[in-house]
């Protein structure tokens, strides 16, 4: 049981780290940057959903990205889309590792 708790800590920690990574891009992001970032995030989120492992935060951050873009704030929109992609990828990773990892906790 202890090991799975440690794994949860690591996952949460790394995710927190990924949020803090919003490094301002060299130049102001424009709509094109946003579109590419958003489509990548959307693809990852769709895959997470197909694995039935989607996270609520992925959905809300993706929506925030869209809202920021609609408001013309492409810097924030790109950052949010990146974050959504990272979250979706983490949930995909969770889905794949758990395919076997769940047995560690099973009562036998």
């Amino acid at each position: 049981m202890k090991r799975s708790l440690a794994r949860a800590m690591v996952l949460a920690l790394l995710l927190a780290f990924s949020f803090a990574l919003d490094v301002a891009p060299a130049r102001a992001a424009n709509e094109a940057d946003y579109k590419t970032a958003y489509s990548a995030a959307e693809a990852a989120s769709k895959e997470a959903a197909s694995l039935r492992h989607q996270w609520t935060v992925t959905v809300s951050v993706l929506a925030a990205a869209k809202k920021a873009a609609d408001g013309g704030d492409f810097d924030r929109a790109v950052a949010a889309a990146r974050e959504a992609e990272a979250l979706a990828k983490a949930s995909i990773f969770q889905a794949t590792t758990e395919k076997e990892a769940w047995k560690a906790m099973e009562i036998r």
Partner: protein
Amino acid sequence: MKARTSILLGSLSAALVALALTSPRVVAADKVDPVADARAFQNFFFQKFPDVKHEDFVNGPYSMNEDMKRQWQEKEEFPPYEFALDAGKEMFATPFKNGKTYADCFPNGGVGIRQNYPYFDEKEGKVVTLELALNRCREANGEAPYSYVKDEMASLTAYMAFTSRGKPMDIKIPDDPRALAAFENGKRYFYTRRGQMNFSCASCHVQSPGERIRAEILAPALGILNAMPIYRSEWSGMGTTTRRFVTCNSQTRAVPLEPQADEYRDVEYFLSYVANGLPISGPGARP
């Protein structure tokens, strides 16, 4: 910019793969043995909580904490689910437009049968839960199905649970590979971590029953569905099994599945089967 994010993701997955590989019991696929699983499941809780009477496990958090148990007994003097219970009894007796009633859809008129749900329907090859059977009964009689998370469904299941109070849970797994697969799928769902919190049902209800998450005491997984449906003070209203699954998912920041999704039906099948022998105590009152 792009490069930095992918480096991060690379390191993230590498770290976690390393962790996953070190997990001790990556075991080859073993044969599905529900009887052994149920016995191991029950013994785990009987040994972890030796002074909790076996039938008390169905009282969830109240079997874990004296102060909470007293508050529960205060509520049970005149429980808040009385209204749902009476509404359910009335709905059960009110004929559909075509003159039939729920009693015509269920064995024994729907009275005293809750302990056999969910069951594995060999024609359909899937698990059928009480809530699903009720909606199918409505549709078969030309009525619109009820929402799985709202009061009408909770009132019906409250009445049916009440008529089975005290009867031991009695779930059957027919000798059908699809039934065994459904049981295994339910077990997998129960132990699989999900949501950004990275919790599985077991993280709370197997690893830490009796402990607090803020104001609430975590219920043991054994017999956790025996009291369904429940009136929760948190919702100040009735909650069906579906509503409980959906809200548990969103609490761990996992997007819930559609009501009566296969996974929900299977995890209900798993949790009910391993609680065989423990009494039905629904409808229940919970924090």
